[in-house]
């Protein structure tokens, strides 16, 4: 059988190059449903979506010059969940499948290797999987929504394209950035991730964000920066204080009108320099919102895309063997990607499902793994009237979470805390 293969998209090129034996860049989507998961039906649903989402049923392979994705004949087998989310994906595992389908009691989760897709693309697959599962389980018909596609629809070319190449310009943006404050702590044993989920009411969160004249993402980023400034102040002398910056992945689909289900996201760094003086939360919200407005324009984003796409067109770089590319990309990623921010905040936004699905689905969460050298990462998703703020860490200390969630409580937002530890 002649199986398809795909080049890694522009964003994904980096991920296999920078992964190591302790860290793989992955994210997870999970849904809690109102009954115990039937693994056989879940497996059937996974099998049914293979034709509709060919770019997800792939294994990561190594070529001489680049890594590539090889379409797999067999679908990934559903398996029982583990003690913590986003357990390490080894090369061996990725060779067979770039995603994991997990279940535990009444929860279904899919963990994606970032080389295959981003949060939005993954969410389309995940919601379609949930829809197919419910269709088989209860013999119901589920309508379409932006996140749910029918499993027997044909695949369009636009869904599989590398949209970065389409929406670039000739003016690559500079990668120069100041380094940011990095949290430190005692590493967890056995690469364990500790997940703390803060559940807040979306209406309340919106109300408080509106009071500060900003969006939920800007508000949460501002609170997180305020928390980081507070921690840095406690731990470092004033003259040694660094910038506090947070990476926000920007979904480019809306900006450029793309339909791709592969990666089409670019990170921007927003933050402040605490040396310049004290910032109130209002100051932070104003500053972060203006940085968002300045950065997120089609022109700026196209320039940022160009700085990623242009090197790929360089014939010398193209003809460089993969091991050397890995070394170079690893160094660039470390300097331009990791050290320039304290952590990521990835907001999936409000997940709207077809009304037929709502009675069965209780919650939908989005979790990202900590970055290679950052110890925390934060992801946010909203479903029905709840917003789930997941902070995942690979250290023992929970200082950032404590300061962050206490601030939300102080601001008048009731928070319910859950964790896989404690």
């Amino acid at each position: 059988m002649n199986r398809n293969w795909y080049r890694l998209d522009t964003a994904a090129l980096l991920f296999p190059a920078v992964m190591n034996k302790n860290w793989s860049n992955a994210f997870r989507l999970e849904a809690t449903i109102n009954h115990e998961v039937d693994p056989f039906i879940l497996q059937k649903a996974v099998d049914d979506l293979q034709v509709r989402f060919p770019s997800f049923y792939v294994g990561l392979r190594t070529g001489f010059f680049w890594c590539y994705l090889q379409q797999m004949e067999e679908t990934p087998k559903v398996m029982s969940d583990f003690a913590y989310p986003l357990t390490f994906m080894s090369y061996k595992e990725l060779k067979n499948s770039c995603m994991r389908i997990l279940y535990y009691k009444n929860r279904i989760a899919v963990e994606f290797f970032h080389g295959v897709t981003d949060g939005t693309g993954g969410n389309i697959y995940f919601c379609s999987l949930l829809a197919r599962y419910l269709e088989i389980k209860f013999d119901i018909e589920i309508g379409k929504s932006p996140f749910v596609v029918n499993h027997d629809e044909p695949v369009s070319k636009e869904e599989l394209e590398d949209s970065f190449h389409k929406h670039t310009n000739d003016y690559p943006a500079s990668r120069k950035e100041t380094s940011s404050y990095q949290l430190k702590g005692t590493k967890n044993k056995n690469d364990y991730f500790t997940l703390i989920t803060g559940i807040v009411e979306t209406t309340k969160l919106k109300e408080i964000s509106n009071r500060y004249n900003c969006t939920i993402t800007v508000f949460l980023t501002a609170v997180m920066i305020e928390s980081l400034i507070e921690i840095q102040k406690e731990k470092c002398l004033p003259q040694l204080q660094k910038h506090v910056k947070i990476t926000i992945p920007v979904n480019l689909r809306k900006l450029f009108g793309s339909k791709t289900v592969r990666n089409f996201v670019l990170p921007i760094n927003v933050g402040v320099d605490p040396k310049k003086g004290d910032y109130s939360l209002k100051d932070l919200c104003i500053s972060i919102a203006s940085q968002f407005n300045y950065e997120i324009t089609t022109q700026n984003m196209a320039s940022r895309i160009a700085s990623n796409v242009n090197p790929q067109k360089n014939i010398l770089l193209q003809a460089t063997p993969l091991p050397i590319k890995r070394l170079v990309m690893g160094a660039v990623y470390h300097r331009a990607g990791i050290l320039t921010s304290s952590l990521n905040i990835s907001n999936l936004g409000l997940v709207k499902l077809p009304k037929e699905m709502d009675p069965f689905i209780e919650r939908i969460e989005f979790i990202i793994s900590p970055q290679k050298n950052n110890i925390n990462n934060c992801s946010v998703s909203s479903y029905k009237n709840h917003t789930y703020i997941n902070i995942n860490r690979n250290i023992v200390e929970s200082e950032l979470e404590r300061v962050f969630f206490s601030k939300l409580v102080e601001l008048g937002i009731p928070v319910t805390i859950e964790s896989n530890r404690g």
Partner: protein
Amino acid sequence: MYCVKCGVKLSDDLTVCPLCQTKIYYNEEQIKAIKEKKYPETMPTRSNANRSLASILTMLSLLTISIILILCYQVYDEIRWGGYAVFSVGVFYCVFVLPLWFKKINPIISVLINHTAISLFLLYINLKTGGDWFLSFALPLNIIICVNVILAIILIKYVSKGRYFFAGGIIILIGLSSMLIEFFQHLTFDTKMFVWSLYVVVCCGIFGIFLILAGIIKPLKNYLNKRFFI
């Protein structure tokens, strides 16, 4: 249940607040009602051992040794320089390849293996060149370095409290070791006693005492923690 310190509401499956580690006390009825954990206990099975790479490197090492030995016997009818090359490959194997076979090798054992391999290599050179410096200089030097490295590993890996005292002690020990090294140098090569080692002893002594004082004086310790945190 709410955390009295953080003010957050805690889910029913928690026994401590995950934010501030405050213990939650339940009455008997509440204990019965405690929900099941959000995640199962199953830990992922994962092997850190890089066995395929280790086997390839082992084969390559064996191949190199065989080629060297065959070449030497073909050309000179004896080992000659081949012995040095074989021992070099052996040391390389002990330092870089051997740890790949194990899931997690204790660094102290690893240091002991590496220093034994290096000592054997030096012994071979000593015997081959007819020197008499191994027992009186190379071996003691190697043992001194090995002890210092092991102490440093213990400090980094196992000591969480009193690090300043321990670090100060090790630095003073390094200074004293230099005197010992110079003593063995004098015994073997008939050089002057205690020429350069005195400088090392003084420098290490001052720095070591400073660290011990930092361990005793809390404000100094806090200042150093802030200045030099890694």
